[in-house]
């Protein structure tokens, strides 16, 4: 993990051509056309951090997390014709990533632990505090334990620094719904004993 700040916010809208493709009834199954794939590529590029954080929260392993995101994006590409609203693509990608991770965790029975040497080498290479490293893992695991609809809203708040309007836009929801979900998610997180300790250290 680098110590860089999150990338600047980008305005995000599905182009009219892409919207038209989603509305059209004639879209055939198979590989979507180039302009739809390019748009998906853009979305993946912008929200890679969010998708990666989901996978990392489950597997605690960088290489496995990258592989899982890659598999999830491929699944999304294959199932693109089943997506009804392009506005909801971020939530949809997040759900696919989460399901892919759960399948993998079930298959490998949770054996993803990164060897300690790797953790230490990563720490040395990136000059990050080992406490921060553990804290991030705790937070990501806690977020993953939330219901999916709350987790994705909270991830966008924490990782992309989005306000309620932006989250609502990205998830194709109403602002009030987002507010309720974030409020519930934060209440649940505040009751977690692992995060209580974190709160004590952060102040």
């Amino acid at each position, binding site marked *: 993990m680098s110590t860089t700040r999150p990338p600047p916010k980008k305005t995000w809208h599905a182009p009219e051509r892409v919207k038209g493709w989603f509305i059209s009834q004639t879209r055939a199954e198979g590989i979507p056309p180039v302009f739809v794939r390019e748009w*998906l590529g853009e979305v993946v590029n912008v929200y*890679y951090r969010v998708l990666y954080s989901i996978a990392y929260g489950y597997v605690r392993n960088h290489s496995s997390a990258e*592989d899982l*995101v890659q598999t999830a994006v491929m699944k999304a590409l294959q199932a693109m014709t089943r997506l009804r609203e392009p506005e909801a693509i971020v939530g949809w990608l997040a759900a696919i990533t989460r399901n892919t991770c759960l399948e993998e965790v079930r298959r490998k029975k949770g054996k993803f632990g990164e060897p300690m040497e790797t953790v230490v080498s990563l720490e040395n290479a990136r000059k990050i505090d080992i406490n921060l490293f553990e804290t*991030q893992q705790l937070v*990501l695991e806690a977020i993953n334990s939330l219901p999916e609809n709350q987790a994705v809203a909270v991830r966008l708040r924490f990782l992309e620094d989005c306000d309620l309007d932006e989250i609502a836009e990205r998830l194709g929801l109403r602002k009030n719904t987002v507010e309720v979900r974030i409020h519930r998610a934060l209440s649940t997180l505040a009751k977690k004993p692992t*995060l209580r300790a974190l709160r004590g250290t952060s102040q």
Partner: protein
Amino acid sequence: MKPKHLLSDYLNGRISGEELRTWLAKDTSREARETLAILNVDDSCHRALLDFAPPTDAPERLADKVGTVESWVESADKADESRPSKSWLSRLIPALDVAGHSKPGKLQRKRKKPVTHKKGSKPATRKKTRPPKKRSTRTKKKT
């Protein structure tokens, strides 16, 4: 003002965290304590994940490959068959290996089933392919 409404204002960005903290400091109710706990967890999680980022330049590469997927999917797949197949995906994933972690699939040979004989039956005998030699009809002359 109630803590609930203050928290709503905070989530909507109308007041800052510090302002909310000062408001809540005056209040000793249970609701105020809970709101303060929510504010604290929001603050600490936000701070913890500020530096979280994937370690490589995988996002750009993955995005590029998603855009140019046709160039590396074999032409047989994209010809006229619009329905995606399992083989399509299994070939796609190693090709998309931006992180370099996927392993090539190993060919597995089918094992031959061991020959088992049913109880009471004779073991299978090899069929003779060559026709049996004809006995010579010649008879040796007696001397």
